[in-house]
């Protein structure tokens, strides 16, 4: 009767037996099997011989002393002793971090004009079909940023923000009429007449030409802004003419005929936003010292017990 082949479990059992890592009952079981199973005993002998062979490798004595010289020791920057931090240290650190991040976010939100205020402040800028953001628009936005009198870039230069702003500003309150932008005519075709008008090329206007023509119109718009009565320009004020220009001068010239003439934006819209901005700045100035004080108190409360728990 042939014995079943040894399993990995058997080999592991033998290894543990050789390492003297078995308890008394397991050891007795192994010895019983060694006496009765030749394959088990052969595996034990093979493992014993391998270990003996490896242990018989001549030890390598260190060829020299690896003790550090004083120079070596001085050159080594030694790590600081590890602090015996209590278990709540990680949680407290995370809480402080979150508080700091939250405070910064709060401050930045207060300091930044709210998009909704911008939309509310300029409700009548929906003068044109919803413009679709194209590469030409991006180029125009870039040019506008360059031409801006204060050198400030356009408030929202990202395509997504541009799209969103266009959509929100174009939606007139309660106006059920579909927007011309819903027309299936591609934007490139709708923009074509403008390009043709500004280009000597009777065919398709190239992108650089379109950019040049729009840059000219942008320059005019900027000149108009510059000649406006001197006021503290808020981001909304800067954005309003830009939107007008985008709507009429660049993208939707052919649609002007079809679009109903809409009244100009009310003059008080930018002022309303300016008031909102001032209020935000006032709140920030009020909140900042209190916030800093609270943070300071929290840090002191955290660090005093920790510093006392540092091991000597």
């Amino acid at each position, binding site marked *: 009767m042939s014995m079943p082949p040894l399993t990995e479990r058997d080999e592991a059992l033998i290894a543990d037996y050789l390492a003297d890592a078995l308890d008394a009952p397991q050891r007795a079981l192994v010895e019983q099997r060694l006496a009765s199973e030749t394959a088990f005993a052969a595996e034990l002998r093979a493992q014993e011989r391998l270990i003996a062979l490896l242990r018989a490798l*001549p030890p390598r004595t260190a060829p020299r002393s690896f003790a550090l010289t004083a120079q070596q020791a001085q050159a080594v920057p030694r790590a600081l002793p590890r602090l015996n931090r209590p278990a709540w240290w990680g949680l407290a650190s995370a809480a402080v971090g979150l508080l700091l991040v939250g405070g910064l976010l709060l401050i930045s939100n207060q300091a930044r004009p709210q998009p909704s205020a911008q939309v509310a402040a300029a409700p009548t800028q929906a003068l044109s079909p919803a413009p679709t953001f194209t590469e030409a628009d991006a180029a125009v936005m870039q040019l506008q940023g360059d031409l801006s009198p204060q050198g400030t870039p356009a408030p929202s230069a990202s395509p997504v923000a541009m799209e969103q702003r266009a959509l929100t500003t174009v939606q007139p309150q309660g106006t059920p009429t579909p927007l011309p932008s819903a027309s299936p005519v591609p934007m490139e075709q709708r923009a074509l007449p403008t390009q043709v008008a500004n280009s000597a090329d009777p065919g398709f206007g190239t992108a650089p030409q379109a950019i040049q023509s729009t840059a000219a119109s942008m320059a005019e718009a900027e000149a108009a802004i510059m000649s406006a009565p001197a006021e503290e320009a808020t981001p909304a004020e800067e954005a309003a003419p830009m939107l007008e220009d985008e709507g009429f001068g660049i993208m939707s010239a052919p649609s002007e005929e079809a679009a109903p003439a809409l009244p100009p934006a009310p003059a008080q819209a930018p002022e309303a936003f300016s008031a909102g901005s001032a209020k935000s700045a006032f709140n920030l100035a009020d909140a900042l010292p209190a916030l800093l004080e609270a943070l300071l108190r929290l840090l002191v409360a955290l660090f005093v017990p920790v510093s006392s728990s540092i091991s000597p």
Partner: protein
Amino acid sequence: MADLTPSDEARLIQQAQAGSLDAFNALVERHQDVVYNVVYRMLGDEASAQDATQEAFISAYRKFASFQGQHFRAWVVRIASNQALDMLRRNKRRPAESLEDMAADGDLPLADASPSPEQALQSRELQQAIQQCIESLNPEQRLTLILCDVQGLSYQEVAESTQAQLGTVKSRLARARQAVRHCLQAVEELLPAAYRLS
């Protein structure tokens, strides 16, 4: 130095952590053979082993303030083996190179105290074959086999030195032994009768 008692070692550790370089060097002297052996078996050549050993002790000195009561030997072997593993990854050394180095060393101690030239040659070939088989293992298995079977560390010490679970140590060791046995069967004729594996 090799006859330090555990309490002596604990005292040296305290002194070294307080900034005594002499105490630290006493610990170095005590454990440098083990560290060098492990690193040498891992890397397979003397020059690299010396570099790795020195780097390991410098690193240990740098981190010594953070050493907290584990076994010093396991701790320093862990640093040294990490050093060796880093070197292995960096160098991707060829086994043949190490064999040449070993032959060129000319200082391979032989197991037989008074060998004939023929026996000496055979013994050297056998050691080279074993070292080659060890180097054919993957780094983790190699380290486990060296620590457990060559250096004679316990499972627990190997687990501490390699920062692995006990079960991981056992399975790595089982696989390493299987691979080395398989490898050595190719040089069965070199093995003395007492060491024949099958």
